[in-house]
């Protein structure tokens, strides 16, 4: 988006939490010409054409979601870039990284360019992630340089893993030459055929074929091993969900490899035992895991092993979900509940400092994909700001979601923490004016 404001906006009286600048204090923030012009103690900044009263609110850098499916090109009946980014803005996200498993697959600069065009009507910044292999078929690599030049911030075959060792090695090597992260959906699909949930007592009881934790961990272990061998390789593990996969990521980080990972709100909020019988709004991939996995994720979110919270927002039409559980599409929406789940689960229940939560939505993800000028309120940064009320109690209603699809397990959940305003490039995009 090139929202360039000639006017300025002063955000007054809020508690600024900007982990990238190590700020957690009462500050005023002046946005001007699409940038952060000034940040100073309360009352120091004068003159601005517009003022935003942020008393009792947290003022944070605009949130970044590293993992969303906005379904365009080709699947506009589930979501469009316009509707998806409207939902993103409602969830406080000013930047979203879009997954390439659309129809067709985003495996060429032309499609990256198509996604970035103004006529898509994006309400937030779009950072396309392009396919790592042609058609995401896992064999021939795409043209990483050309994709990067057209605006892609990473490559992935998300939805599918890159299984072949040689192809993954080549992808990491070639991407390393241009400092591009390779994002892996870690799932050994040879072990998960016809599986629709996590392997455990619940799947046995429901009679559903199920995915073992090993199917995820074995791929992460292999990828971390490769990332440790290849100079400058950048590996980003998408939607990590198991304790064993976390061990591999820790090993990579200890070895100073450039390994990063993200975790979804549903994986730190729910386990497989929470799935009501055959409710496909609880079906996603990776699936909801065991309590032990969830506990391990909480530890890793706290100790810094996890770099980012990402939603894996995966909208699907009702007719794709209201079917036999095993035939239902994988995926749930998540943009509008992410912050509230983080505050409710991590802050209210687990006593995470708000600054850590903000970091997981801002500085953390910005680092993963080198999103320069994002994820911070430093002077000169883009004027992307998320303002929220950390204490506000509210009930999420799926029917009122701004996403085109309503496939969420969190309908009717009582949550704490609500987005009050989302500012992209100096312009308030939520609430819509």
């Amino acid at each position, binding site marked *: 988006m090139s929202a360039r404001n000639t006017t300025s906006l002063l955000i007054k009286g809020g508690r600024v939490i900007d982990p990238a600048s190590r700020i957690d204090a009462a500050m005023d923030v002046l946005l001007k010409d699409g940038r952060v012009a000034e940040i100073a103690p309360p009352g120091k900044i004068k003159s601005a054409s517009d003022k935003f009263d942020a008393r009792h609110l947290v003022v944070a850098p605009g949130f970044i979601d590293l993992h969303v499916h906005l379904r365009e090109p080709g699947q506009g009946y589930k979501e469009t870039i316009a509707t998806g980014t409207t939902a993103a803005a409602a969830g406080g996200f000013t930047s979203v990284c879009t997954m390439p498993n659309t129809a067709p697959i985003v495996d060429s600069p032309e499609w990256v360019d198509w996604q970035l065009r103004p006529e898509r009507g994006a309400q937030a910044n779009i950072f396309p992630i392009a396919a790592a292999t042609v058609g995401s078929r896992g064999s021939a690599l795409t043209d990483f340089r050309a994709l990067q030049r057209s605006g892609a911030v990473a490559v992935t075959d998300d939805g599918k893993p890159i299984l072949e060792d040689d192809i993954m090695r080549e992808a990491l090597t070639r991407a390393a030459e241009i400092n591009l992260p390779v994002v892996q959906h870690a799932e050994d699909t040879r072990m998960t055929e016809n599986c629709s949930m996590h392997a455990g007592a619940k799947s*046995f*009881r*429901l*009679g559903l074929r199920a995915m073992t934790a090993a199917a995820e961990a074995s791929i992460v272990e292999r990828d971390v091993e490769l990332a440790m061998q290849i100079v400058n390789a950048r590996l980003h593990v998408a939607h990590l969900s198991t304790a064993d996969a976390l061990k591999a990521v820790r090993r990579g980080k200890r070895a100073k490899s450039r390994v990063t990972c993200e975790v979804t709100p549903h994986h730190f909020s729910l386990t497989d035992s929470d799935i009501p*019988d055959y409710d496909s709004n609880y079906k996603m991939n990776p699936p909801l895991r065991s309590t032990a996995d969830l506990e391990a994720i909480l530890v890793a979110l706290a100790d810094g092993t996890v770099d980012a919270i990402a939603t894996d927002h995966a909208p699907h039409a009702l007719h794709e979900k209201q079917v*036999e*559980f095993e035939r239902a599409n994988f995926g749930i929406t998540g943009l509008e509940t992410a912050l509230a789940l983080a505050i409710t689960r991590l802050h209210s229940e687990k006593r995470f400092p708000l600054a850590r939560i903000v970091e997981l939505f801002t500085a953390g993800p910005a680092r993963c994909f080198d999103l320069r000028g994002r994820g911070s309120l430093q002077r000169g940064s883009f004027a992307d700001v998320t303002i929220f009320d950390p204490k506000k109690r509210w009930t999420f209603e799926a029917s009122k979601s701004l996403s085109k699809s309503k496939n969420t397990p969190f309908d009717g959940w009582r949550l704490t923490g609500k987005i009050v305003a989302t500012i992209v490039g100096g312009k308030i995009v939520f609430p819509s004016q």
Partner: protein
Amino acid sequence: MQPARGSLLGIEHLDASEVLKILKFARRMNPDKPRPLLKGKRVVLLFYEPSTRTRSSFEIAAKAMGAHTVLIQSSGSSIEKGESLLDTGYTLRAVGADIIVIRHPNAGAPFVMAQHIDIPVINAGDGLHEHPSQALLDAYTILRNKKSFKGLQVAIIGDIFHSRVARSACHLLSKFGVKIILCGPEELVPEIAATLTNGIRVTRNIEEALRGTDVIMLLRVQKERLAGLRIDLPEYVARYQMSSARLKMAKKDAIVMHPGPIIRGLELTSDIADGAQSRILAEVHNGVPTRMAILARAAGKMK
């Protein structure tokens, strides 16, 4: 939407008292003495999977009570043209069905159907999940041979993992405090099976499973399911096949059951299948009165 009254989606969520009510009513049912409890009712048999026993006995049961039956199979119907489960359900409802009996390869399909359609849905087997009418007819068969469930020990031998019969049987027997022993190789009888309900023990040793056992339930072993496992066919036969020699390890008056179809020479020998302690054909026979009771319950006529 809550499933309509009289639906039978599984044994798990059924009360023990309800199970006994169905079994008691089944004893009063006799297909040779028709009772028009379902007179004028339309029972749709919606079968997405092949079936001989279950389908024919539901059909005979329905007809013995005066119902009209319509059989719909996936081939030769709109299902083949890509109609969804729910659309098929709405269509059958609109056409005037009073009860839907559904067999489906996906676990939970009857549950999804029942959540959206306001007529009783009877699960005639869904994927690996449950096969409640089989569990009820097995319970009926057990009670024809044993005084009560009290103090009984039941060994279920074979491919538990892929068996909806086993899951339903465990839920049912457990409601009456029956000791359940699951026996077979690890790939077919995972340890996690013991978490299904109370009173379940898992063993790899058939001798241990049979010692002191009153009821032996055998399950079909599908050759294709052994493919890729650490156990091969001859080894399975050597370790788990029910033979006369092995039957002696169980209680003297133990009975042998099998939901069928049986594979002679694999999970059991012919002398077991045809032997005095076998109740395999009795089970098939008992399927009709049991399903008459299930249908009467669906129609609100089980009094």
